[in-house]
């Protein structure tokens, strides 16, 4: 199933619009769409969140923590020593066929793989934020494995940013059970939900800002049509203390050297605001969740 096409006139319309800083939906170049956030929707998951752009992309993330054995590739002692004391994160991004026709059948495989690899690289590296040492139960043997499953339910452009935002929210919402280790190395999991605790370092989890180069300018939070008009995409991952946690150019097309730096700057500053807003929303969510759970699409 081929992705949808764009007509020359549409293309021209978008490029001009971007040039005089007015986009089809009335936004400026660097304006985001309104984000609706819900957390703690999935009872079977340790943490979950759902982000929805006003009539656009919709991403659901479920986080599950399970006990698994620590894997070490024994090539390099020094490295192995570090790995032995660490938990693991396993990411998986899936574009559901309900999101867009082009994801039907095997259509989504490539994009799934691409996104999964990207997210996995960012979260598993030192820049991921999560404190992996805390996830270790018995050094060299058992640890918590954090499974992060992102599910794209609706496709309105700018998936990547929303995925990262949602993941961050989901991790904020995640609780890891307390474990007690007995003499015979039997791991006892406390079922008292009260003493389950947050994953340490969730607030350092980066989010991504994707800048789409259209014509000679760049915009954020592109819609489907705008993405079709995009020459090259640049995703910049930023974390709370304004460090760059990853840069990746996506799609064909090239970026001028001068423009690149400019894009990085914008990406970083925008990322800061995003994280700030997100944290505010998460706080609100917590208060709501304390009172009652809201079902899916309650706020859609």
């Amino acid at each position: 199933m081929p992705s949808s096409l764009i007509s020359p006139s549409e293309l021209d319309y978008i490029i001009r619009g971007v040039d005089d800083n007015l986009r089809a939906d009335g936004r400026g170049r660097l304006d985001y769409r309104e984000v609706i956030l819900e957390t703690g929707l999935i009872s079977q998951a340790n943490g979950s969140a759902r982000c929805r752009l006003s009539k656009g992309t919709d991403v659901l993330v479920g986080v599950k923590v399970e006990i698994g054995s620590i894997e070490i590739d024994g090539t390099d002692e020094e490295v192995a020593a570090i790995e032995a004391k660490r938990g693991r994160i396993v990411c998986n991004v899936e574009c559901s066929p309900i999101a867009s026709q082009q994801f039907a059948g095997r259509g989504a495989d490539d994009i799934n793989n691409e996104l999964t690899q990207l997210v996995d690289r960012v979260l598993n590296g030192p820049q991921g934020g999560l404190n992996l040492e805390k996830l270790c139960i018995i050094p060299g043997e058992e640890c918590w494995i954090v499974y992060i499953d992102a599910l794209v339910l609706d496709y309105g452009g700018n998936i990547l940013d929303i995925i990262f935002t949602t993941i961050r929210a989901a991790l904020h919402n995640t609780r890891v059970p307390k474990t007690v280790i007995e003499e015979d190395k039997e791991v006892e999991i406390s079922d008292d939900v009260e003493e389950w605790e947050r994953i340490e370092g969730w607030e350092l989890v980066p989010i991504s800002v994707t800048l789409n180069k259209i014509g000679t300018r760049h915009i954020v939070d592109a819609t489907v049509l705008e993405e079709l008009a995009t020459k090259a995409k640049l995703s910049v991952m930023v974390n709370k203390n304004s460090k760059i946690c990853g840069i990746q150019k996506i799609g064909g097309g090239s970026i001028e050297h001068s423009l690149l730096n400019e894009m990085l700057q914008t990406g970083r500053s925008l990322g800061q605001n995003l994280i700030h807003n997100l944290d505010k929303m998460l706080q609100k969510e917590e208060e709501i969740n304390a009172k009652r759970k809201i079902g899916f699409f309650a706020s859609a």
Partner: protein
Amino acid sequence: MSRQELIGPQGLRQDGRRASELRKIKCTPSVLSQSDGSSYIEQGNTKCLAAVYGPREARQKAQILHNKALITVEISLAPFSMSERKKRKKFDKRLLEIASAVKQTFEPIIMTNLFPRSQIDIFLQILQYDGGMIQICINAATLALIDAGIPMLEYVCACSAGIVEDTTILELLGTPELTVALLPQSQKVTLLQLETRLHVDKLEPVMKMAIEGAKDIYKHLDKISRNYIEDLLQKSNPHPPI
């Protein structure tokens, strides 16, 4: 869970339902932007999204039907939908079976003869699973098809029932059960699936109960979609002529 505990002393079930009580239904039509029609439905802890594309040109030339539209159903299960995480392969056998069941249910109901040589795709995404896969799939699909404005003879509403120690129970979860898909107006049954051993005499009451359940679901779906349409009309012309 062992069968004794299924029903408490006051005839209440673990989730506090009475034997003949449905799970809480919550549903919303047209929740997705890209699809032609979509719906979200929630029955207790089972949550499902449905999207419908089409009628549109058939993808594979080989599959084209010259007198009517081709219907395809695809079900996918979110990795976190079950209590233990497992990365379900796409085209998992069990899912394929259910998908074909859903397909067969809708083939006679959708007026496919109106769209020769075309294709209608139904995609179902289970977000959270707590029993009653087929029924929720069918109900979600019905709503999505209505939202897509695809002509159907009438609603299809599915419900399941089971039996525990001589008491018939609506939406008996976890254990295999009898699922019925009902055409509420014409009172016809389009799908009847029994996944367990059941005494012939018991079949009648169980089926009755399932049908009753289906009727209730129908009432609910009907109400929802009517409200939705009225709402739309309201929006389209805020000042209707008095």
